[in-house]
């Protein structure tokens, strides 16, 4: 139980990380997140199964393509709408729907849309049998978190990301181009999202509804954790992950969504800015 909760939490964190990074830096709430997730999975599948490209290469291509789509979306659509929060939300949401429903039109459904595990088999941890894929997820998740932390705190680019996140006018005055950083943040967010998809999707099948599911879950995680805090995302995904596993074990597996919803509403009532959302508290929330 403990082990599964841990893995579940890390999966959630991986899903939500891309969304949180994009929002935290550029302030664009990328509602096309779920669509990018499914798109990442589908592209990998397409390259792997149809064109016979090796697994790693097709994964890299998929991540790159999704990243480019994110960047294009920012460059050609969102850049005209900067500052109009509503328009940004509607646009990204609409793009997400276009991608997802187009995939549905092309008939992405059923069991053949399934990524193979990296390494089949399972291992025993603390008396529980766990698939190797899950272990890879945990390892990759932890690695990713560390890399992101290093990137954001110790590279020039990462530091300028943080600068823009804190105040883009000041960032502009010390020679950081917020526009460029915003594009990068959207690219990075989309790439992380596709990366998460490739890691997680071998556990199940790829389906269009998964896209909406992922969007819901990442939003829930980000709201509980505080929308712009990476640490918050981490903690919140552990809360939700364990809540889900506990409900599934002790009450009923169909009630997990209820538990998550209740959890989210309670936290909103107690602390509207989420657990760790401090940044724009006064500006954005009352």
């Amino acid at each position, binding site marked *: 139980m403990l082990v599964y909760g841990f893995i579940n939490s890390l999966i959630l964190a991986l899903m939500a990380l891309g969304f949180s990074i994009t929002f935290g830096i550029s302030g664009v*709430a990328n*509602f096309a997140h779920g669509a990018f997730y499914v798109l990442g999975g589908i592209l990998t599948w397409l390259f792997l199964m149809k064109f016979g490209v090796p697994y790693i290469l097709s994964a890299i291509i998929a991540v790159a393509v999704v990243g480019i789509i994110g960047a294009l979306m920012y460059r050609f*659509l969102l850049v*005209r*709408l900067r500052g*109009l*929060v*509503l*328009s940004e*939300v*509607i*646009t990204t*949401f*609409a*793009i997400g*729907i*276009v991608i997802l*429903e*187009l995939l*549905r*039109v092309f008939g992405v459904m059923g069991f053949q849309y399934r990524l193979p595990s990296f390494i089949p088999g399972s291992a025993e941890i603390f008396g529980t049998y766990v698939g190797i894929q899950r272990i890879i997820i945990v390892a990759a998740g932890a690695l990713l978190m560390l890399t992101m932390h290093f990137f954001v705190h110790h590279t020039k680019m990462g530091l300028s990301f943080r600068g823009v996140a804190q105040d883009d006018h000041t960032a502009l005055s010390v020679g950081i181009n917020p526009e460029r950083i915003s594009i990068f943040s959207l690219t990075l967010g989309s790439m992380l999202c596709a990366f998460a998809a490739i890691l997680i999707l071998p556990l199940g099948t790829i389906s269009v509804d998964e896209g*909406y599911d992922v969007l*819901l879950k990442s*939003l*829930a995680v*980000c*709201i509980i954790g505080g*929308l712009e805090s990476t640490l918050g995302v981490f903690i919140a995904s552990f809360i939700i992950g364990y809540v889900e596993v506990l409900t599934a074990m002790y009450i*009923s597996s*169909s*009630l997990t*969504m*209820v538990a*998550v*919803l209740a959890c*989210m*509403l*309670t936290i*909103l*009532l107690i602390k*509207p800015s989420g657990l760790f959302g401090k940044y724009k508290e006064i500006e*954005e*929330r*009352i």
Partner: protein
Amino acid sequence: MIEKRRKERIDRGIKACTDDIFCLSSLREISYLLVPRILPVVLVFFLVLVVSLYWKKVLVITFVMTIMAISWDFLASCGLISLGHALFFAMGAYSAGAMNHYLGLPVYVTLPAATLLGGVISSMLVFPALRLRGIYFSVVTLIIPLMLMRVIEATKIIGGTEGISALSPLPGLASSIAISMTAMWVVLFSLRRFITSDYGLIFVALLDNDRAVEASGLNIVWFKIQAIFIGSSICAFCGAFMTHYYMSVGMSAFALDLSIFPVAATVVGGMGTLAGPLLGALILGPLSEALRGFGTFRIVFYAALLVVFIVGLPEGLFHYVRRKYEQIERWVEVK
């Protein structure tokens, strides 16, 4: 040297006369004010009379959707941008269905009762999110209906996945048309009057600067609750009406298209005027019906249209038309 020109916009004389002086001296000035208000009412009325039975049914749905769109715009002009309007709709639909099915109440009781009950339940559900602003609020409202859908699916309460069917119908198509059309105009004109009243100004101020409202000693959460209650009651009425119109209620009441349609209509029509969404919805409603043959492609079309409009014509059709009606445009040289 390239001659630089810019577009100059000047209010028409007649607008200045009729706008704030309020001393209408000629038939021309009276008609300048009244025609844009009465003409659509008359046009829609005759449209309903002439079209075939099939399109009459489409128009009923369009009217209901128009009411949803107006309510969305009302909430948006209070700074509460909801991406989950289906929630309000579903609350009305399910309350009407449950009252009719379990308590056996007749239509003329369930319709008003569900309007109120739906408004109350929705306000309670959205209440935790009311302390959030802007995008944070939108995010939460997007989640709530989708999650509630899962809840109903999982717990099998109020009909579960199959919903409740065999409810009492509305008395005839003619009265359905009459009810929905009247409701549409009543909602439009009363909300328009409401937001220009002294009390309504507070609601609009919530969007413009809610801290100023708070600084004036007004409790903004309380006003937001009122706004949500008004908006969601209107939608709950739509839900209740559609429940009786279809004689059944199901999980489709939470569907995403119900949340997207009001947004699309408002974006196409123009925000913040309440008449814009009406225009947008009256265009999009029949259009989406005509596209029904394409199946799920319809929603792709919607979403794509949304992107095109928001990038290409961000002000919306209504603002565009109104500018032409009220102002003279001409090119002048930049000196």
